[in-house]
C-alpha cells in the first residue's frame, strides 16, 4: 500500500475532544457527518448532544493548509426519556445526523435517537435591534408618558451568536430502535428505519408518516431477520435500499406499491461453504449501506469486509475488500466480548470523478482505505502520539501470524476497546473526519 503517483498522502490536521483516557460515557461519539458544502462538520454523542464545527475561510497566504475546523454550535438535541408503559429507558444517544442542502441563510439538519427524529434549524445572529421607543436597552418598559420623541430602531452589529432551534419533532412512529435516516433527492421527504419497519415522512408534517416497509412477522416467535440500515437513492426519488442482519440488501421502488413488501431487487452473495461456522450469519450481518455519488453502485459493510455492488448485478458484489481478515480465527472470542456485534460504518470519497476510494474503521484506532482504481489499500491510525501537523501518517500493518516484523502489530496486541465505527469524507476535498471513542480526528491531504 505505499504511495506513489497520485496516491493521497494523509496528514494529521486536528483532534477534538478530551485528552484523558478515562472516557465519560456521554462523550462517546455516535455519529459524524459533513454538510453538503463541507463547511460544517457535525458530531452526535451518547449524551444526546450535537456539536457542529465550521471550517475557517481559507487563508490565501497560507497555501499549505486548508481551513481549520472550530466549534460553531453546541446544543442538546435529545434528552433521556422513560417509557412508562414498558418500564424502560429511551436513550438520548444520537444515532444519526443528516444535513439538508442549504436553501437560505440558515442550516438544517435531522438528528435522531432510538425513537424520535428532530429537524434543527441552525441560524446566525450577528446584529441586534437597538433604539426601541417603549423599552429600555435592558428590556424594562418605559413609562409612555416620558416618551417625547419617536425614533426608528436600527440594527447594530453584535458578536456572532449561533442559535439552534428545533423546528419539527417527528415522534411516536417507531416501536423499535431507529438505525437510519435518509433524505430523499426531492428534499421534501425522508425515510426513517428501525429494526422492523421503514417510514416515509414529509419534512413539513410531523403528525403522520407512511409505513413503506414492514418485516415484522405476525408471530414474533418467527423473527429471524431485522433491518440494519436504509438509504434513498441519490438521484432516483422513488428508489431506496435496506440491508438486513442476514447479509441481504433489498432495493425497493415506491411506485410499485404503497407498502414495499416485495423488493424490486435482492442483492445477496452465496455463502462460501469453506468458511462456514456458527458465526457465519453474525459476520454477514450488514452494518451500513451507502450509495455511490452517481447512484450506480452501493457499498455495504459487514463485520470483516466492505463490498461494492453494481445495482445491475444482484447475485454477487463486483468487489470485496477485506478489512481485518485476521479476526476470522478470533470470532469466538469476539463473540464472547460482544465485539462481533460492533456496527462499523463506511463512506465513499468526495465527488472527485478521477479517484474512487472507500473508507471504513477497525480496531486499535485503525482505519482502512481501499482505492478502487489502483486496488491499493492502506491502514492508518488515529492517535495523538506521533501526529504532527503536515507530517504524513505512517501506514500500519497487522501481523496475522508467524514472525512479526518490526513496526508490525500482532493481532493479540490489538486493543478492541479502541474502535473506529464512524468516519466521514468531505464532499469536495480530501479532508476526512475519523471518530475514535471520544475524540474526533481530522486528517487532510498533504498540499504541496
Amino acid at each position: 500500500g505505499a504511495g506513489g503517483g497520485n496516491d493521497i498522502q494523509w496528514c494529521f490536521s486536528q483532534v477534538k475532544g478530551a485528552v484523558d483516557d478515562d472516557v465519560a460515557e456521554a462523550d462517546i461519539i455516535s455519529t459524524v457527518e459533513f454538510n453538503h458544502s463541507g463547511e460544517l462538520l457535525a458530531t452526535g454523542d451518547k449524551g444526546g448532544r450535537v456539536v457542529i464545527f465550521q471550517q475557517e475561510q481559507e487563508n490565501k497566504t497560507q497555501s499549505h493548509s486548508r481551513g481549520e475546523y472550530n466549534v460553531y454550535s453546541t446544543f442538546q438535541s435529545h434528552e433521556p426519556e422513560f417509557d412508562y408503559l414498558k418500564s424502560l429507558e429511551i436513550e438520548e444517544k444520537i444515532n444519526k445526523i443528516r444535513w439538508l442542502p442549504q436553501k437560505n441563510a440558515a442550516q438544517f439538519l435531522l438528528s435522531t435517537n432510538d425513537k424520535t427524529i428532530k429537524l434543527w434549524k441552525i441560524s446566525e445572529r450577528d446584529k441586534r435591534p437597538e433604539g426601541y421607543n417603549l423599552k429600555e436597552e435592558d428590556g424594562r418598559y418605559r413609562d409612555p408618558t416620558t416618551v417625547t420623541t419617536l425614533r426608528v430602531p436600527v440594527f447594530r452589529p453584535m458578536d456572532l451568536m449561533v442559535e439552534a432551534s428545533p423546528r419539527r419533532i417527528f415522534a411516536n412512529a417507531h416501536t423499535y430502535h431507529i438505525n437510519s435516516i435518509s433524505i430523499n433527492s426531492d428534499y421534501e421527504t425522508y425515510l426513517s428505519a428501525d429494526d422492523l419497519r421503514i417510514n416515509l415522512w414529509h419534512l413539513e408534517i410531523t403528525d403522520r408518516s407512511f409505513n413503506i416497509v414492514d418485516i415484522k412477522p405476525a408471530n414474533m416467535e418467527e423473527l429471524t431477520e431485522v433491518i440494519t440500515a436504509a438509504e434513498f437513492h441519490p438521484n432516483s426519488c422513488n428508489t431506496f435500499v435496506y440491508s438486513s442482519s442476514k447479509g441481504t440488501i433489498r432495493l425497493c421502488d415506491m411506485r410499485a406499491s404503497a407498502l414495499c413488501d416485495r423488493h424490486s431487487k435482492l442483492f445477496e452473495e452465496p455463502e462460501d461453504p469453506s468458511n462456514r461456522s456458527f458465526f457465519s450469519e453474525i459476520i454477514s450481518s450488514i452494518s451500513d449501506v451507502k450509495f455511490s455519488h452517481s447512484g450506480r453502485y452501493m457499498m455495504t459493510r459487514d463485520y470483516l469486509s466492505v463490498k461494492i455492488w453494481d445495482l445491475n448485478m444482484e447475485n454477487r458484489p463486483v468487489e470485496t475488500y477485506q478489512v481485518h481478515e485476521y479476526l476470522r480465527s478470533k470470532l469466538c472470542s469476539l463473540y464472547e466480548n460482544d465485539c462481533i456485534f460492533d456496527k462499523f460504518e463506511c463512506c465513499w470519497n468526495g465527488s472527485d470523478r478521477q479517484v474512487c476510494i472507500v473508507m471504513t474503521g477497525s480496531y486499535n484506532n485503525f482505519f482502512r482505505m481501499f482505492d478502487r482504481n489502483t486496488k491499493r489499500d492502506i491502514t492508518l491510525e488515529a492517535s495523538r502520539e506521533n501526529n504532527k501537523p503536515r507530517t504524513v501518517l505512517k501506514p500500519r500493518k497487522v501481523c496475522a501470524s508467524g514472525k512479526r516484523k518490526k513496526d508490525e502489530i500482532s493481532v493479540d496486541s490489538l486493543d478492541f476497546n479502541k474502535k473506529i465505527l464512524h468516519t466521514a469524507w468531505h464532499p469536495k476535498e480530501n479532508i476526512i473526519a475519523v471518530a475514535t471513542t471520544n475524540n474526533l480526528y481530522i486528517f487532510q491531504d498533504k498540499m504541496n
Partner: protein
Amino acid sequence: MGEEEGLPQTQLLDTMFVRGLKRKCFDGEEDIEGTLAGIKAIPSYNLQRQSLLDMSLVKLQLCHMLVEPNLCRSVLIANTVRQIQEEMTQDGIWQMINSQSSGQASLDRLVSTDILCRSSREQAEGKHLPGCGTFSKDFEGDQAQGSSETMSTTSSVQAPRNLQGNVWDMESPQENKGNFQKSLDQIFETLENKSPSSVEDLFSEVDNSYYDLDTMLTGMMSSTKMGHCDGLETFSSPANAAPNSNCKSDLNELDHIVEIFVES
C-alpha cells in the same frame, strides 16, 4: 480488553471454530491412548459447541436490562442458538451430558450410536462394546454415578429413559426442538412485551454464579481435564469419588440451565 493480554479463555474455543472446521471424526479402531492424547490436546467438539450454546444463552439472559435490548443482537444470538440446537438434535442431545462427564468424545459417539441401535434388552444388560476395554466400564461407572447424583435434573433422567429404547430419533428431537423453540419464543415474547418481571421469573431459578462466564468456562475446562485424569486413574483404581463429584456439581448447574430451557 486492551489491558489483558490478547484474548484469554476462549482461545481454545477459537481453534475449534476456525473456518470450515467441523467435528473431528475419531476412528474407533485407532489406538486408544493415541486418541486420548488427541482429545487432551483439544477439547472435544461437543464440549466446545456446548460452551458456545451456554455462552449464547447467558447472553440472551443478560439482554434484559434497564434499556430496551438491542433487537438485532438478540436475533443474531437466538439464530446461533437455533443452529447449535439443530446440529445437536441431529447428533442426539443426550450425548452432551455424557461427553462432558468423561471428555471422551470419540468413544461416546460410538457408544451412543451403538446404543441407539441396540434393543432395550441389551441395553438393560449393560453389554460392553467390543474393543473399548476398561474405558467403557469407566464410562458406564461414571454414568451410573451421574444418574444417581443428578437424578433430580430431568435432562439426565432423559438419558436413561432414552436408553430404554424410545424411538429417540423420531420423538425427542422434535420434542426438544419444540422446547428450545418455546424457550426462544419466551425470550422474544418478553422482548416484545418488555416486562422485565416476567423475564426474571423465567430465569429466577438460574444460579447466579452461572453469570460468571470465566468460572463457567474455566470450570468446564478443568472438569474436562479431571475427566481425563479420572479415566487414567480409574484404570488402576476404580473408586475415585472426589474429582468426579466436583465435576458433577458443575454439571448440575449446567444441567439445571439446560433443564429450564429444554423442559420449560
